[in-house]
């Protein structure tokens, strides 16, 4: 235990505790005001939404949910936009040094189930691997654990102990660029490798340690985050994503509230409610907007491909039953009420299209937290920066070896589809094996059959195929229906950062109309964003872009994925960006004769996996 200050008052903090957990423990639900004066606290809990910004040691715009506090840290409320205010002596101490440069055959980004499996498989196949993750410990969201206890889980321990795996904790990949990889003996543009830019140190702090990783193969296991649908009051402090509640419970042993309501769709609501119970919260109800009866339409397939998940789900269900937590289907939280934080919610019965059944609304009073989760949105920044093609404009398209459309780049886990930890791990194993092989025999796709894969590949592949069948069932059983549009009021914010209300979006859509040749479709996502300001704030549309595109009507915007193009994948302080970089290499693959970026690369050994 050590001391920190919160707005001048001293507080005790534990090793590994985040600023958000310290603030919540101090009884604070909010610690920031928007430029419009609205109070905000934690929302996504995993560094995506930028709602929980706080000032730490004079530096504003620090994500409280990510920042692990250190002894003596000064945590202060952030009101509106603020300029940094550093005492002169610290200014000099935070001048960043030159990047540490490492050349390594395989880089795995993300240390959740997929990344752990990928790193272990690649290292097992003989490759040296660098594993990068934002967390202090490997595990990602699924295997998240408190930083001050013993490490649990075989894979979590194995990656930290493996002689060929270099584990970079507390590290964020903010950019990657083609070229600069280890020499391969040929001058082929497709095998010039990748340069991965990493900052390591306290989240959003100035002067973090820069690493430049030069690699032949890249495995992207960047995970996903909860999708939250807007509803009146969803931006009140105390309304959080299901993932935020889960991360606080698992990683910080902190309950988001004492009287909590869970709402959304999908089986993930059960473990969230279960985690809340383990940290002492009272769960007033779990409201599943969909109907799990959908699973019964294909009972054989559900049992065949999902049987591994049943015991886990039954454990959660049993715990909920033991605590007499009501579980209601076809109902959802459609409004949250309160002045400076949530105090009550309205729950309503939903029609099959998710409109509110008239007269079914009822208020639940004395609520201090609401957790919402309507499926997941994949983290695509790095895949898009690498130039990977997408499937359905939403997921990274991968082939049978988890290879993307870009040679040398592999993807595993949630960026390729949502199907649970077992599928992610199986994909990670395939990706790790393939990446190790690519690093060794670049471009030689035809000879792809090393002994390791002959032995392990088919089994992993079978698990992947079963996992994907289950993922399709999951997606079919828990769709998000358009009726949620009717929950919104004119003044309900859709974009939380720029505080853009639904009414403004409706006017924009109404002015243009949905006519394809002369309407919103012609304008596209870019114009839509720039004219309404949706998605232009600090979260860069991560929370709102998908919802805003949905409000325009399905398929109306021809290019919704342009909102996911974020070449700077994580915020970087300008001084860190200005730090001296490594010497550029001659192999940098910027080709002045490169033609249309839309043209397929004929050299790419890629075919989308029909499964």
């Amino acid at each position: 235990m050590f001391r920190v200050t919160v707005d001048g008052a001293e507080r005790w903090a534990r090793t590994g505790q985040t600023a958000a957990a310290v603030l919540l423990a101090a009884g604070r639900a909010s610690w920031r005001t928007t430029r419009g004066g609205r109070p905000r606290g934690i929302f996504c809990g995993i560094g995506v939404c930028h709602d929980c910004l706080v000032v730490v040691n004079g530096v504003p715009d620090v994500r409280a949910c990510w920042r692990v506090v250190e002894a003596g840290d000064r945590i202060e409320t952030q009101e509106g936009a603020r300029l940094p205010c550093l005492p002169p002596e610290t200014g000099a101490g935070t001048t960043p040094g030159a990047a540490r440069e490492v050349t390594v055959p395989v880089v795995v980004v993300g240390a959740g189930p997929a990344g752990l499996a990928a790193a272990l498989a690649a290292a097992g196949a003989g490759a040296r691997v660098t594993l990068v993750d934002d967390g202090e410990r490997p595990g990602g969201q699924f295997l998240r654990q408190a930083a001050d206890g013993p490490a649990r889980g075989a894979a979590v321990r194995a990656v930290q102990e493996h002689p060929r795996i270099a584990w970079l904790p507390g590290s964020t990949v903010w950019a990657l660029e083609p070229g600069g990889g280890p020499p391969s003996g040929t001058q082929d543009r497709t095998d010039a490798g990748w340069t991965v830019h990493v900052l390591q140190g306290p989240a959003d702090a100035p002067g973090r340690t820069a690493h430049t990783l030069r690699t032949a193969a890249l495995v992207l296991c960047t995970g996903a985050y909860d999708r939250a649908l807007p509803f009146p009051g969803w931006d009140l402090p105390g309304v959080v994503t299901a993932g935020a509640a889960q991360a606080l419970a698992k990683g910080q042993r902190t309950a988001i509230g004492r009287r909590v309501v869970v709402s959304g769709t999908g089986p993930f609501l059960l473990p969230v409610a279960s985690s809340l119970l383990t940290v002492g919260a009272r769960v007033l109800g779990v409201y599943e907007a969909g109907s799990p009866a959908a699973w019964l339409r294909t009972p054989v397939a559900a049992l065949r491909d999902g049987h591994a998940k049943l015991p886990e789900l039954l454990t959660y269900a049993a715990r909920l039953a033991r605590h007499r937590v009501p579980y209601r289907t076809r109902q959802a939280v459609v409004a949250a009420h309160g002045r400076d934080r949530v105090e009550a919610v309205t729950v309503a019965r939903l029609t099959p299209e998710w409109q509110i059944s008239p007269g079914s609304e009822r208020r639940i009073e004395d609520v201090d937290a609401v957790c919402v989760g309507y499926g997941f949105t994949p983290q695509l920044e790095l895949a898009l920066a690498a130039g990977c093609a997408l499937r359905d404009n939403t997921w990274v398209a991968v082939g049978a070896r988890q290879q993307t459309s870009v040679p040398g780049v592999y993807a595993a886990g949630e960026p390729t589809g949502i199907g649970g930890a077992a599928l992610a791990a199986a994909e990670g194993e395939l990706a790790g094996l393939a990446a190790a092989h690519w690093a060794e025999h670049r471009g030689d796709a035809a000879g792809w059959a090393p002994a390791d894969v002959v032995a392990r590949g088919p089994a992993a592949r079978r698990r992947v195929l079963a996992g994907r069948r289950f993922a399709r069932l999951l997606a079919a059983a828990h769709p998000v229906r358009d009726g949620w549009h009717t929950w919104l009021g004119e003044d309900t914010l859709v974009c939380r950062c720029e505080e853009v209300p639904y009414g403004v979006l409706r006017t924009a859509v109404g002015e243009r109309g949905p006519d394809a040749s002369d309407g919103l479709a012609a304008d596209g996502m870019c114009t839509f964003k720039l004219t309404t300001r949706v998605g232009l704030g600090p979260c860069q549309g991560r929370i709102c872009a998908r919802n805003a595109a949905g409000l325009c009507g399905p398929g109306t915007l021809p290019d919704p994925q342009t909102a996911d193009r974020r070449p700077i994948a994580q915020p970087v302080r300008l001084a860190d960006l200005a730090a001296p970089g490594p010497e550029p290499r001659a192999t940098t693959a910027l080709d002045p004769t490169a033609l249309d970026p839309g043209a397929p690369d004929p050299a790419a050994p890629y075919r989308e996996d029909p499964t």
Partner: protein
Amino acid sequence: MRQGSPYPPPRPPYPDVVVVGSGIIGAACAEALTRRGVRVTVLDRAPLASGTTAHGEGNLLVSDKPPGPELDLALASSARWPRLLAELGEELGEELGTGLAERCEYETKGGLVVALGEAGARALAGFTAAQRAAGVTAREVGPHDVHAYEPHLAPGVRAAVHYPQDAQVQPVAAAAALLDAVRRRGGILRAGVRALGVERGPGGRVTALRTSAGTLPCGAVVNACGPWAGRFAGEAGAPLPVQPRRGLVLVTAPLPPGTVRHKVYDADYVGAVGSGDADLRTSTVVEATRGGTVLIGSSRERSGFEERFRVAVLRELARKATALFPVLGHVPVIRAYGGFRPYTPDHLPVIGPDPRLPGLWHATGHEGAGIGLAPATGELLAQLYAGEPPCLDPEPYRVARPGLAAEEARCSA
């Protein structure tokens, strides 16, 4: 060039002019043509105004241009922008038109050019003297007064010049306003249609545009394809040496109002704009947007249509911006965006009819200044098309000029 009245009776059942490209230049041309009663169709292969226009800063600058034809175009445009927005607002009527300039974020915030070194200060003094002679308002600001203009500017500024004519507009909103006017006047806008070439009739004149959605008969075609104008000109059979030059802009987290008040740039800006070096050139331009974010531009490099960034370019921009504004050092960058600008070997736009192919017109090659130069470009093109006396001498921008021909010969060799 088309002679006589722009209203030839009887009118054929197809557009007089097809404008290829719906960026700010295409939009300005279409606006100026429809204002004269010309029937226009605007095509874009992508969503409207989503190319170069959507990836720039919205600079309306006179300060960075040495005396010459580009400055003439910039001065004419600078005077035209507020009038144009006011006219379009009036046309829309009181209810919709009020505050159009506001909605387009038109702001005459002024530019402040800063020299941090002695050499830059000397170059700046000579540069501004020549500009003043050409009609630019440029006021010297002493090193002791400069912090009254920009409180967060680095200490040790050697010289600074304030350019009150420099302004800013939100490019996509401005293009949308122009395209709305075209639509209102009966013009047709079609997105997602790619121009593939032209059909020629007897005498070699353009009779139709071939597109991905079929052949579109028309009286004339305006090539306003920006960085892709060279490609389309080639497909039409009249090669033009317009190439993409990439620019990158960094965007910071929202900052308090008044952190950066003007468009502030380094005196070395002029050097980069006037260079044909394919290697990276950067010079700092720092300015705040209405949303509170600060934009940091801009690099210029010729790397084809490569969309992926080089981190070295971002580093260079960040270094120069923090040298001007040390307070930005601990501010997060939340985004970087890049765009391709249409570059010509002699750094002048191409505006006017193509003598090699009657009925083909060009309005392109504005590099990073297209937003600022759009109104005068559209006006000039429409005047030439309608046979009106032009507001500017069109000679320097003509297609058949020596500065383009030399490069073209080299391209085809």
